[in-house]
């Protein structure tokens, strides 16, 4: 099958290797990712501070580009997912807004219809691919690796756009189990925000949160923290490296672990390119 892939900022430019990994992982699952090349940055839940309608325009345009190809859309970043899903929700609920935005998009020859489904990595893997298919693709099971699942906020909150049960989610655990990992799900700071988005508004807030989360991973003797959000991953890797005394907890973006379990090398999976070294 084929799905429109929205890159956001995390699967191109300096992070283009993350897209390579993503594509290889989905190839093994029989899914072809068609890159939505004309899509732009979702605004990172920041452009709303400039003008909320700008966020709607940008993101309904992003969805319209997927609809123009007749494809549903796969978004692999929690924040991109939340922002784009919110724009969809707003336009689907408010006819006036939808019409106004479509008048704008008309100049680009585009129309937001509301027909494309929007998936995050998690619900796409659970509902479309299925855990069984993931299990079948594993050639190098993560046996004995204590993986600590971390969802990140924007796939669970707010409830209107959540892809799993916000109070007691399970999809990430199920995927990690399918990879053969030993899942350590019960740790104190599982639901604490990673602080990524406050790094450029209140840096200390970010560092305090990372300190708490990563130390609580240590407390349960986790080997690695795994997240389906590239931004949480960046916080755990790049921002952890900036801490005064980093707890030295390795982290991985979910598809990197999948790639590794599917038999790709340390380099191909991307695990090689972490600032906090992954001992594999």
């Amino acid at each position, binding site marked *: 099958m084929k799905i429109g892939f929205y890159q956001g*900022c995390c699967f*191109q*430019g*300096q992070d*283009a*290797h993350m*897209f*390579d990994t993503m594509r290889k992982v989905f190839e093994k699952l029989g899914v072809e990712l068609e890159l939505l*090349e*004309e899509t*732009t*940055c979702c605004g*990172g*839940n*920041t*452009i*709303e*501070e*400039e*003008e*909320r*309608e*700008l966020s709607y*325009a*940008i993101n309904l*345009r992003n969805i319209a580009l997927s609809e123009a190809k007749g494809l549903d859309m796969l978004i692999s970043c929690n924040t991109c997912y939340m922002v784009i899903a919110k724009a969809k929700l707003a336009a689907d609920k408010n006819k006036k807004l939808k019409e106004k935005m479509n008048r*704008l*998009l008309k*100049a*680009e020859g585009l129309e937001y219809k509301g027909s494309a489904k929007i998936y995050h990595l998690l619900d796409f893997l659970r509902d479309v691919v299925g855990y069984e298919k993931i299990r079948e693709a594993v050639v190098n099971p993560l046996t004995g690796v204590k993986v600590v699942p971390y969802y990140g*906020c*924007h796939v*669970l*909150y*707010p*409830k209107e756009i959540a892809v799993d*049960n*916000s*109070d*007691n989610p399970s999809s990430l655990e199920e995927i990690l189990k399918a990879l053969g990992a030993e899942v350590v799900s019960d740790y104190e700071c599982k*639901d*604490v*925000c990673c*602080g990524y*988005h*406050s790094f*450029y*508004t*209140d*840096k*200390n*807030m*970010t560092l*305090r*949160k990372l300190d*708490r989360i990563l130390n609580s991973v240590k407390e349960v003797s986790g080997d690695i923290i795994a997240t389906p959000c590239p931004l949480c991953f960046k916080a755990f890797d790049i921002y952890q490296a900036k801490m005064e005394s980093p707890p030295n907890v390795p982290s991985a973006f979910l598809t990197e672990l999948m790639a590794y379990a599917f038999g790709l090398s340390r*380099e191909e999976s991307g695990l*090689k*390119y972490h*600032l906090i070294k992954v001992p594999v």
Partner: protein
Amino acid sequence: METVTLKIFRYDPDKDNVPYYKDYEVPVEGTLLNALLYIKDNLDPTLSFRAFCRSEVCGSCAVRVNGKTKLACKTPMRELYEIWKGKPLKVEPLNHMKVIKDLVTDIDEPVEKMKTLMPWLVPDPSVVPSDPMHESIIYPEEMELYKDQIHCMLCFSCYSACEAVEDNERYRGPFAFSRAYRFQVDRRDIETAKDRRIRYAISGGLWSCVQCQKCLHVCPKGVKPAEDIQNLRRRSIRKGFTDKPGAKKLKHYVDWIYATGQINRLYLPAEVYGDSEAVEVLKSAYKSMGAEVWEVPKPVKGLLKFRDTYLEVLSKSEEKAMNIDFSHVREIDRLVSDFFKADVCTILDRALSKSYESKGLVDRLKSLLGGN
């Protein structure tokens, strides 16, 4: 009858040295508030909790269930039973507040914090008639601006769930910002009060919000504090508070997305914190691991039309925080063309339909464009 165990937080400061949890078996029916009342009526009259209206109006019965904030009268027991698969439910008082007894918390601190943001009307005499017999009219379109915020019933669910309160005790709390915003957009409120309110909001942690969205999630009334915080940030920049890191971050987003369709995380440290070495540090870190780093984002296909859409929205906006800085945009254009050895249009025309493979991609793109 189907039952479930409630493990309830118990603490009476007059008797107990430390809090403890006590188990109660309750029927899986009605709401969580029904279950608490069932305990009080049938099992243990000493249990204390707050509840008045029982119908989602007064906001007094908010508690935490397995760590998640819930308004007890709005939460069906069946739902909790299903989510947690029949396992015991730990019921605790709201977070970030002192416990008076059992599930009853002291709301004084968040209320005092809220007051520092002036969540009240300071009438503008040129708008509000001085004669009290005259009506002070609010038109429906004005009401639109704060029709959600006025539903806040001070249940403190958002305060309990707030990630910023957790790590910055000076932070005023989501509800406080929503209440401040409600008056910030009230036409009858005098401009000098709006100026002060913005200053107070900034010192009250306006830029500390992490935008986790938990406040939207837990609000029983559909208030969206995290979005009101974005709105207040916008207004703070409009009022000239452009030196905050958050304001510089926004400038980065506004200019770079217009210029290239993308932000550029390599340049954020320089543009926000003045850390001009960060670009090279990050590049060499990646290089040492054998990965090539794009210094500038690849301008997206259809960029020029996208720019028109972008400008169209902003030109019609009466609310925007700032104008696009076109001298900055020209600088970015120059960075892009220096990097790819071609102007933006040429890059768009020639480089975009090519296959996508990261390692060595930059070199391949450059050679494709005839540069080096």
